[in-house]
């Protein structure tokens, strides 16, 4: 197969519990991102966003890569990878350094000092850092700034949001991709990637929470004053809804999934709706009629519990009492009828169902919330590439300048 030559290709991959998605985009000279296409494949060997069968997961990734290459005519040699899983842990840390330069001017080296210090933070044994996200800097007069370079202060503090995960589990996912001959150029937390797809800068500054309801897990990320203040994950997702239906109504998993997608709802059915649902039979399954009330009850119980757990975890955090923003729900599992009504009953703040922000190029994928993570990862990768100190001149020098100024942030 002959591939077209795109000089600035960015490829993002998400290995989820229900599907592997590979989004291919091109970064144009003006800095805009154009979506060329998305390859997908059903996942095997992944449960709750963690690989439980390496070979099956590798096959799924291989199929998704092939699908992406066929759809976009691009040979994929490196990707940005979204990471998730219940083992992901986060905390907020503040570090301070003294400024001894002339005039107490804050220089890049002081920021590098802080970055160096944060990397020496002790982690639990077996854990590795995924992100050290700077929320803001604080000067000795107590004021917070986004970029302190050039300002004067005797001390400089930085507030970080640290995200870490179990090293072996992270390595397993990365290795699964690398063994297919594809390099993992970078990685990002799934919820951080999702936030880039769904939230605008204005929403991040005002304060917002993004909750991604996936098949294997529900993860969330909160912004306060433009900085990430909280991330979390609970390994309960759309698959649990299906599993509950299968066990409650004694259905095979595929029939339960079909029932959920076609007739599932988490609130009471509207007036005039059918009281029963026919589950079609096949050679191994006799046709059955199940009461809609039971379907709704099972799904409502599970979804309500999940949302209350998310709310409970957010409520434990110091930022929550002051939070006045909106909770944005996205992900495939949030599209079940009645979800928004249920969420608005449970959350004491405004809630909304959100879609990925538009990208140029193939628009057919933009309206799919289950692709929010991989679309957001493209944006993340673009920012990451811009923040990374490149080599060479020309456009590279411009990027170097931007990197030094930390103009782009998450």
């Amino acid at each position, binding site marked *: 197969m002959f591939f077209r030559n795109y000089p600035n290709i960015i490829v993002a991959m998400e290995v989820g519990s229900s599907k592997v998605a590979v989004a291919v985009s091109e970064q144009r000279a003006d800095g805009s991102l154009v979506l060329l296409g998305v390859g997908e494949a059903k996942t095997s060997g992944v449960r709750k966003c963690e690989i439980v069968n390496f070979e099956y997961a590798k096959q799924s990734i291989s199929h998704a890569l092939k699908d992406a290459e066929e759809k976009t005519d691009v040979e994929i040699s490196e990707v940005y990878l979204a990471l998730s899983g219940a083992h992901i842990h986060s905390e907020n840390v503040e570090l301070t350094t003294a400024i001894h330069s002339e005039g107490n001017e804050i220089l890049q080296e002081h920021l590098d000092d802080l970055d160096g210090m944060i990397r020496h933070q002790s982690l639990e044994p077996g854990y590795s850092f995924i992100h050290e996200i700077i929320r803001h800097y604080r000067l000795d007069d107590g004021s917070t700034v986004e970029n302190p370079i050039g300002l004067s202060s005797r001390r400089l503090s930085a507030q970080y949001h640290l995200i870490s995960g179990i090293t072996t589990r992270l390595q397993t996912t990365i290795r699964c991709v690398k063994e297919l001959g594809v390099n993992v150029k970078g990685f990002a937390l799934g919820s951080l990637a999702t936030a880039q797809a769904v939230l605008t800068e204005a929403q991040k500054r005002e304060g917002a929470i993004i909750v991604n309801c996936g098949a294997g897990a529900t993860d969330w990320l909160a912004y306060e004053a433009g900085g990430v203040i909280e991330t979390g994950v609970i390994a309960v997702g759309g698959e*649990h809804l299906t*599993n*509950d239906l299968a*066990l409650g109504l*004694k259905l095979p998993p595929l029939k339960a999934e079909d029932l959920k997608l076609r007739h599932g709802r988490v609130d009471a059915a509207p007036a005039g709706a059918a009281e029963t649902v026919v589950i079609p039979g096949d050679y191994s399954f006799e046709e059955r009629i199940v*009461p809609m009330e*039971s379907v709704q009850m099972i799904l409502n*119980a*599970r979804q309500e519990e999940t949302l209350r757990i998310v709310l409970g975890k957010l409520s434990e955090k110091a930022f929550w009492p002051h939070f006045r923003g909106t909770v944005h729900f996205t992900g495939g599992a949030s599209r079940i009828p009645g979800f928004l009504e249920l969420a608005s009953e449970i959350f004491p703040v405004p809630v909304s169902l959100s879609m990925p922000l538009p990208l140029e190029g193939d628009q057919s994928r933009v309206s799919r919330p289950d692709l929010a993570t991989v679309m957001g990862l493209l944006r993340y990768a673009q920012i990451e590439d811009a923040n990374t100190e490149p080599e060479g001149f020309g456009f590279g020098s411009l990027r170097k300048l931007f990197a030094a100024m930390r103009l782009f942030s998450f």
Partner: protein
Amino acid sequence: MIELVQDESERNGGAEEAPATVIGLGQAGIHVVDQLVMRGRERFEAIALDADSVSVDGSIAPEKATLGVGLCRGLGCYGDMALGRAVWKSEAERLQTRFSEVRQAVLALGLGGGAGSALAVETVKAIKRNEGRVVVVASLPFAFEPAPRQAAARRVLAELREVADAVLVFAADRADAWEESKQNIRKGLHGVNLAMARAVEASAQILASGGMNAISFADLRSLYGRFGEGEFRENCWLGRGEASVSEGQGLEALVAQVLSSPLLDGGAVFAEGKADSGMACLMTGHEFSLTDLKVLRRELEAALPKGFPLAFGTRTLDRHEGRLSLSLLLASTRPQAVPEVRTEEPMPQPKPQPILAEVPAPVSMPLPTKAKPAPAPVVMPEPVVAVVPAPALAVAEERNLAPVDNVVRRTKSPKPVKQEELPFEGGSRGRFENSSETIYNGENLDQPTFLRRRMAVKE
């Protein structure tokens, strides 16, 4: 010794190929069946029957029915055997039609109640009429339950032993064996229900098509089908272990897990007059070799008393790949040397007697090998339950006493039993069985929410 008995029904080709049907009768039986359905691993029919509609509605058995609504209004039989029999009569036609298709059944019930006990005997008869095989797994009432209930349980047990092919009897008082029962007896009861569910499962596996290699229905019957009319005691003890081959859990650990079951009472079960035979049922995937089997068998036999008769059966299934499940069923096949008790009259008030050497210790007691007085002349003690401590005991021993006059006497709490591991498994996690659990606030979120909230699902 275990003897192989020629089973006439084995010549009937049709009976062997039918799947086993598990029937839960009454509230206790339904709890047992629900445990099995929640685990959802083995393919068999599950039916829940009771006169109490709350019990039936809360069940997750795929097939269930409230019986005798016209008589009891769905409120149950309140322990009234006569009402239970009337319920059977009113539903006889429907039930006999249903049971006409059943060729191999395992019944689960609690003795001494109303619906379960009354339905059990008739159910067994209905299935046997169609040349089916029936194994009964039953629990004895608690020691503190009133005398009429004990008498009813004794009668039903005697009848079941006449009509059923095998009867496995557990003692409800074994609930004390679980550490958690000290805070909440229901947790201990749950342990007993789980043990009964596993005994039902093992029996259903033996009965089912394909069965177990080297163990047949005849073995089951020879272990648990021997008792005469007068025997009113537990005859079944169960130990269970599970190991994951992928996690490198050894066979030694598996055997240790099995033997640490609270029901085995730290080895006290092998004392004189208790378990004298057993069978081990191993479920595994295809990766388990004959060599591994030999090693496992050797480990298990080494842990049992020397010369202990043990039958070993295996079954390999695809869905057990990477897992080993071992159930050890122990049986008491020799009758106890005690005279019969008449069941028509209320129990006479027994005189205080010295300790009998044959008296089975309560589950919380130290091993009976500890110092005891010499055996006294055998006089019928308060016999109605498996746990029958005599009123006058050695001073040094402290135990929970079965009341001789139905008055509960509080004694000092029993000495704690060292427990290695609690083989206590929650409900099925369905598709998440092979993934790490998601625990939040002590709850396993992989188990369905509606089950944990005990919400009834209409099907």
